[in-house]
């Protein structure tokens, strides 16, 4: 079995990475290891367990800033924020269900490094937009800090952005500083039933373009909706479009009304109040609306919203959910099929990317998990990797660059 090394201090982490460089060792970097299934499989000589770097370092709710150890459990962080009526606006996805693990078991560092962006992403930004600074040890075995503790900062290069979404292939982060925001007082969702794909996608784009600050826009096909735990979504045997409105009670009512007035009146509608609303958006966020079966295949597609209907038509998934007003599509196939991957990848060729999340090993090993990059971009990605981790010590191969 692979030996696991668990540094207790940043200095020890530094020693481990320096040692790996000297001894041609390779390290599979993990927080609690809940996302090891994401990205390309890593073959490393050792596990680097970061779980010691945990705990709140500094939280100033009135400054909207929080500094914490990178391996702080997501659950602990979310409880703390909830106590202070604050939140991470990028709404980090819980990958537990999708990757066949327990839910709410990951770390903030993991969420940041795989860029776990939830339904609010199209309005409030991604993980990277909420990372203000960090401390880390790069693959070179050198400690460095980046960014700062204030939101407005253009001092030097924004390495926080580079690290967010880097799957631990450039540096192992010990400490993160996050931007936090006030949590909404109320969360309601307008449901529109029975729309076909094209009109549904068009309506989502139209709703995103209203001044009503819609903070979630998802569409669930009829037979996928039947898998929901929320009765309003599950029981009508129709497709469901959800439009989320959050904020002050008085404003939520007003905006919900305004959205209803936009509809022609022909559609069947309903609304979810706070409790059901939260449950529905968690299902969307954590892709619990899609089955998780032995031998199945799950793709995550990020593309221009206007391409959504055509992507779905080309890919013919067994189940699917569109989020981000059509900018994110989860495609589910009950089983792997020759040519499927080719079709999915081709569907986003005009702009966008398809990431293979879950598949039987033979498929996963046969094709790149991430959308292959055009040559110029691929070269730059490789050079960035070589600059931060010249010996390929950290998570070799995980991003496929």
């Amino acid at each position, binding site marked *: 079995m692979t030996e696991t*090394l*668990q*540094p*207790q201090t940043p200095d*020890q982490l530094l020693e*481990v990475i*320096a*040692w790996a*460089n*000297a001894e041609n060792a390779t390290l599979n970097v993990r927080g609690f290891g809940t996302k090891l299934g994401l990205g390309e499989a890593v073959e490393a000589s050792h596990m680097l367990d970061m779980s010691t770097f945990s705990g709140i370092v500094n939280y*100033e709710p*009135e*400054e909207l800033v929080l500094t914490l150890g990178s391996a702080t459990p997501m659950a602990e962080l979310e409880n703390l924020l909830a106590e202070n009526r604050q939140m991470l606006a990028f709404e980090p996805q819980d990958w537990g269900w999708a990757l066949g693990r327990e839910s709410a078991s990951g770390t903030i560092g993991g969420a940041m490094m795989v860029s776990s962006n939830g339904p609010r992403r199209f309005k409030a930004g*991604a993980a*990277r*937009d909420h990372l203000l600074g960090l401390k880390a040890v790069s693959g070179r075995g*050198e400690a*460095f800090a*980046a960014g*700062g*503790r*204030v939101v*407005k*900062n*253009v*001092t*030097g*290069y*924004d*390495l926080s*952005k*580079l690290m*967010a979404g*880097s799957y631990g292939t450039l540096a192992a982060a010990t400490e993160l500083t996050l931007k936090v925001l006030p949590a909404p*007082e109320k969360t309601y969702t307008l449901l529109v039933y029975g729309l076909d794909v094209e009109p549904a996608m068009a309506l989502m*784009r139209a709703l995103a*373009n209203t*001044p009503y600050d819609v903070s979630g826009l998802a569409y669930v096909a009829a037979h996928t909706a039947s898998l929901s735990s929320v009765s309003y979504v599950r029981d009508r045997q129709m497709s469901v479009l959800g439009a989320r409105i959050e904020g*002050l009670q*008085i404003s939520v009512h007003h905006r919900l009304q*305004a959205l209803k007035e936009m509809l022609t009146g022909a559609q069947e509608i309903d609304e979810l109040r706070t409790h059901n609303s939260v449950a529905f958006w968690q299902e969307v966020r954590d892709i619990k609306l899609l089955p998780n079966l032995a031998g199945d295949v799950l793709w995550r597609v*990020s593309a*221009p919203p*206007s391409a959504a209907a055509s992507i779905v038509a080309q890919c013919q998934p067994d189940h699917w959910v569109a989020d981000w007003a059509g*900018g*994110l599509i989860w495609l589910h196939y009950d089983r792997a099929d020759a040519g499927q991957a080719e079709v999915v990848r081709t569907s986003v060729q005009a702009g966008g*990317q398809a990431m293979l999340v879950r598949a039987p090993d033979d498929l996963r090993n046969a094709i790149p998990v*991430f*959308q292959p990059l*055009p040559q*110029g*971009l691929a070269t*730059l990605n490789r*050079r*960035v*990797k070589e*600059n931060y981790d*010249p*010996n390929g010590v950290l998570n070799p191969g995980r*991003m496929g660059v």
Partner: protein
Amino acid sequence: MTIIDVDHDILAKRDVLISRLEQILPSDCLLCHEDQLRPYEADAQTMHKQTPMAVVLPETTEQVSATLALCNELGIKVVPRGAGTGLSGGALPLADGVLIGLAKFNNIVDIDYDNRCVVAQPGVTNLAISDAVRDDGYYYAPDPSSQIACTIGGNVAENSGGVHCLKYGLTTNNVLGVEMVLMTGEVVRFGGKHLDADGYDLLGVITGSEGLLGVITEVTVRILPEPETVRALLLGFNSCEDAGACVGAVIAEGIIPAGMEIMDRLTIDAVEDYCHPGYPDAEAVLIVELDGPAAEVDYLIERVTALAEENSATSISTSQSEEERLRFWQGRKAAFPAVAQLRPDYYCMDGTIPRGKLPEVLARMSEMAAEKDLLVANVFHAGDGNLHPLILYDANVPGEMAKAEELGAEILKLCVAVGGVLTGEHGVGTEKRDLMPEMFSEADLEHQQRVKCAFDPEGYLNPGKVFPTLHRCAELGRMHIHRGQVPFPDLPRF
């Protein structure tokens, strides 16, 4: 100040350079005479000036590419420039370099409401993007005060902000994609109309890279639907500290206004003389702008009014019409030119501090200014702690400019000392370059430069900016490896 040592061998290649440039560019795209170069000798940080060997004003990506490839071949440095409104010397030319101006790239390429974005050439001004979509009810959120003049390419290079970034973010939070020409002439696209990064988030580091990584030739930005209602409060206080406490109270209530701006007495008096916005007679003025659905805005106006009362506001007025709201802003928007009337010159600083440190920093700043016998007018983006102290001086009084620069540096060091940063939106450029070690260790700066090494390993693009020490990439690449020690005997392993 020396930006970077001049290479005389390169100066000697000037004729070769010009004749080769003539082969790749139409004649009206190349400027080489002294009087043609003069307008490009500085950006809006005018304390230092330098003319380049030549100014190139290309019209197409192919011309940019050919120019860069040529300079790369000849080993000539290149400084990109947008509108030259930068306040940190980022577009300051190099005596032995070529300045490449993007002013002719001034077309909007695509307005795409379906995907809520605009694709623009880099020389399009910030305001022109909003103007292009306003009739359809949209706008581009980051709004630097220079928005009539500054370019979207410059905004990306500086990661510019504005009064509305408190709620809507800086440029980096609103850019979806760029096309960039690398020093080799190669054209690479980053991002696009989709939201997730392809590979590493290189768009994230390009934004704010100050022209050191490549020349941006196209930008895709996210646009937003205009809010239903916008209203502002104009609040007077007995001190900036009281105004600052009010800002803290608003945020502690969970309210994120569209903007919160403070001006101090000196600024208030200057703008009253300059454009008569009708500000209250107060030691500090705070403008709070709220946007959203009418019902929400009206309700928040009431809440903020109550908070202002609790925080000892001496006067409270609420805009009752769009004209009145614009009048509240008129003084803030004219703050820089108004303050410029007080003394022949002013020097604009841009540090950010944790909001709670405002009283401490203000007190220290006025002591430091008094010690130097200089006046400082204060304007802040108070919601996010971004200060703009304007140091007043007269460049014709011997020694005063140097004193102003010293005071500026001391103020920025103070910002860092209280947990803040050197620059919130204007960039490092040449101006704050040598202060970088206040905030970053040598290793931190080296890790930033590694991005540069990935994009421009020879270091031809805009050298002398941002980084106090220019390491050669080969030297940065070297690793110090110690083999054969018994590693970490105390480390838990399982």
